[in-house]
């Protein structure tokens, strides 16, 4: 009888650290009526478009007013050569509270590093020299790499088969929305979900 209890207790530190990591990549009020999990790949052009065009509106209309809790999830696709490296840098920068800045920089300069492969140059452009060193070290840390892996496994469990995919969660029910989207329609949908 005691064995399951010990097992649960031994898993507790892992759960706590996972929750902390998630918070570093999450924005808004955790008890908001909606949760939006965004599975994204830094090297995917549609993810870039979503990040630069629709995400600011989502942040303004839902995340900032406390209507939605946004959680970033890494989903680097195997066909994108530098996506996993970019995801590792992003997760590493989350550990020092710079996820948003680094994600912005990675998407902004995606066409450049995608071609030349100099991912860290994009990351470094928004970090101080001290932070650059920390991020470079953290990006090789097994816990950061396993965080990327965990996000990917989570995506596979949710049957994410393209990027970007938004998983809108309301009262435990999940609604997946894949690919590029029309913000007017998304807004109508989110408003309808909130009013339920």
């Amino acid at each position, binding site marked *: 009888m005691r064995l399951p209890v010990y097992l649960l207790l031994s898993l507790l530190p892992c759960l706590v650290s996972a929750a902390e990591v998630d918070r570093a990549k999450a924005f808004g009020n955790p008890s908001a009526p909606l949760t939006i999990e965004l599975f994204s790949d830094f090297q995917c052009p549609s993810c870039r478009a979503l990040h630069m065009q629709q995400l600011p509106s989502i942040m303004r209309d839902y995340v900032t007013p406390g209507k939605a809790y946004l959680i970033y999830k890494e989903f680097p696709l195997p066909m994108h050569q530098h996506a996993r490296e970019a995801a590792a840098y992003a997760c590493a920068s989350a550990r020092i509270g710079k996820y948003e800045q680094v994600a912005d920089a990675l998407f902004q300069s995606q066409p450049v590093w995608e071609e030349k492969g100099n991912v860290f140059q994009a990351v470094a452009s928004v970090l101080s020299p001290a932070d650059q060193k920390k991020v470079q070290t953290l990006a090789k840390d097994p816990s950061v790499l396993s965080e990327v892996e965990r996000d990917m496994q989570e995506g596979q469990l949710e049957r994410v088969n393209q990027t970007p995919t938004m998983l809108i969660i309301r009262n435990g029910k999940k609604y997946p929305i894949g*690919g590029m989207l029309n913000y007017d*329609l998304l807004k109508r949908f989110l408003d309808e979900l909130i009013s339920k």
Partner: protein
Amino acid sequence: MNSFRSKVVSALLLLVRLALGAVFVYAAWVKLREPWLLFAMSIDAYQVLPQWAVLTVARTLPWLELALGILLFAGRWRRLSSVAASALLMLFFSLMVRAYIRGQTIDCGCFGPGEAISPLTLLRDGSLLAGALLLTILSFRRPGGLRTPPQPAGGALVPANAVERGDHSA
């Protein structure tokens, strides 16, 4: 020999018709149980319709699919339902191929949200289209094919509508 062939064609007709009917009913059910705006977003992603048309199609298409599925399953208005199924699947398939060629990373929208257009979805929808076309062709032919039926002795003609009625049971 001819009778055996007729039976095979009839069995094939029945099988394809029931399968297509089930697929249409399932596709409708999946869309109707989810919020209709999710389907609207899938349609909009194809970037072929203005927003008012997207909203209209999102509200009505699942019901059309349901009606078509029931008609196919029940075997009513066979020619009409098989032509409608072929036309609808032809439209879906062309739009999917267009999106795939253009490199659009979008949801197929075929059976609810969360299914990206891929070679697999194209193969599946292409097979459905082939089935619907086969059903349409067979629905306009009598079970024995297009060969002239053997004329009864004495040269009495078989009424034309007996061949073209297409209401053979399947």
